[in-house]
């Protein structure tokens, strides 16, 4: 037998639990071993759990699609287009003079989520917002001329009745905040890049 035990190292029979039954002088050493082994195990488990969790984060090909170019040249005044960005609709509206005036005229005190129109656009005719209602994520109506645009001329969410104005700000209904303005930049006078 290769693993013959010397009688002195034979365990006490009938003793079912290890742990603190080995006399006070050995307690510290065992505690130390337990602590070190436990710590190493915890670090090891953590090191292997993280790759699994991180694998559920957006993959490189998903991140690579994280910006979208939108040409503006063909959008006439008063028209709006919807483009996809990160799987979500982005509303790009070419606002009329009346709509801009209306958006700028609103006193901030009347707003649930006070923001001046100027803080929500880079160039006044162009309003760019995420087409996702800030209530529970439905897509509001108002992009087509035939859509209901709500009481404030912007967008109206049919799910739970939120009304947005011509600056995409929440005016009435359950939504807590304005339509989100995504990061975007004018790459030329007739094109923007969202994301």
């Amino acid at each position: 037998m290769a693993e013959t035990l010397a009688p002195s190292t034979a365990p006490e029979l009938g003793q079912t639990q290890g742990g603190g039954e080995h006399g006070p002088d050995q307690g510290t050493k065992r505690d130390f071993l337990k602590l070190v082994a436990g710590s190493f195990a915890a670090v090891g488990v953590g090191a292997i759990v993280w790759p699994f969790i991180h694998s559920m984060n957006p993959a490189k090909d998903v991140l690579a699609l994280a910006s979208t170019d939108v040409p503006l040249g063909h959008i006439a005044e008063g028209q709006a287009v919807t483009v996809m960005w990160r799987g979500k609709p982005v509303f790009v509206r070419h606002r009329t003079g009346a709509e801009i005036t209306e958006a700028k005229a609103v006193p901030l005190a009347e707003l649930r989520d006070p923001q001046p129109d100027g803080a929500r656009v880079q160039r006044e005719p162009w309003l760019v917002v995420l087409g996702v209602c800030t209530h529970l994520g439905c897509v509001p109506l108002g992009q087509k001329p035939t859509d209901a645009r709500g009481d404030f001329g912007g967008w109206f969410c049919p799910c739970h009745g939120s009304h947005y104005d011509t600056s995409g700000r929440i005016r009435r209904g359950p939504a807590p905040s304005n339509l989100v303005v995504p990061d975007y930049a004018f790459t030329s006078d007739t094109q923007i890049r969202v994301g």
Partner: protein
Amino acid sequence: MATGLHDSSFTNPVVRWIDQRMPVFTMMQKEYGTFPTPRNFNYFWNFGALAMINLMIMIATGIFLAMNYTAHTSMAFDSVERIMRDVNYGWLIRYVHMNGASMFFIVVLVHVWRGMFYGSYKKPRELLWILGVVIFLLMMATAFMGYVLPWGQMSFWGATVITNLFSAIPLVGNSIVTLLWGGFSVDNPTLNRFFSLHYLLPFVITGVVFLHVAALHITGSNNPLGIEPKGPQDTLPFHPYYTIKDSVGIVVYLIVFAFLVFFTPNYLGHPDNYIPANPLSTPAHIVPEWYFLPFYAVLRAVPNKLGGVLMMFGAIAVLFVLPWLDRSPVRSMRFRPIAKWAFLLWTVNFFVLMWAGGKPAEGLYVVISRLSTAYYFAYFLVILPLLGKIERPLPLPESISRAVLRGGGPLPGGAAAKPMEKA
């Protein structure tokens, strides 16, 4: 103590509250805490626990791979490459799963070998052994279907060849193959059902493993001496003695596993499987994964289609009846001077079959395959039954504790018949 509640011995109030209503803590304490386990295990007894760990690793990695895999002939290959390149740590998860399959077979083959060497299949553990063979079969089916999923050349042609085995069945063979394929060749319906079953079977394996362990905890473990424990002096509580011994084995196992994953992740695979499946062109030399090679060699050793298929399945099926082929009352090969050498030769022969299965089916390789196949079966069907009658085993030690604690090794003759010691 209120009526209807389990009489729990735990003092922690939360544990006790749960344990009184659902005595899982009592059960774990009984089966993995105080469970009396022969005190003389060697490291071969690690491999059951390792197989359990390996199964959990395969299920965990598999679930995360399935989140990114697409079971469609036009997208499967690309989705696997996307896992390798784009998914965060996808390469790691896939390589662990790929090499995990190989590690699983290494671990399980050692586990089976252990059972054969130390006679763990003998009464009263026949059912335990049979459940193990069922697990082995399910593993082979799962591994085969998993290998098809990346939809490379080896996937496709492996699937074609293996499913065509069933065409050897007289009369209904071709209908069965059409049924397996869901069409007239290995194609999208085949891939879809293989993915579904590949996801299902590991959970079936988990169920059978549970039965395997349940049966084990009735008979108790065998041990290197092959004699039953006669009292508490022959056993140790499972915890901490064997939880620690298993942990040592797990660390070594993980080192080997990590070496494969991080240094030679494709060593055990076949490069042709990185070529997308092409139904119009078979690779020049197609071989299964290494763990199927011995059985593949048996298949090709027989110059008859049906005969080859039957022999190949027979190579596994014979394991089911092993407890009744081996008539010797002595379990451990340590005390069987002739059977020991016959079995060690069988072991070498298994590797010869594995080697021959990876060679082309021509010339000397066929001759070697045939001789090896003959010995593979002769060991089970001729040698073991015969040795049960004619072999004179060495004297068994009186008890485990005597052999282990007092100088080791078998005691002189005549000791075997002594009555059990009282604790």
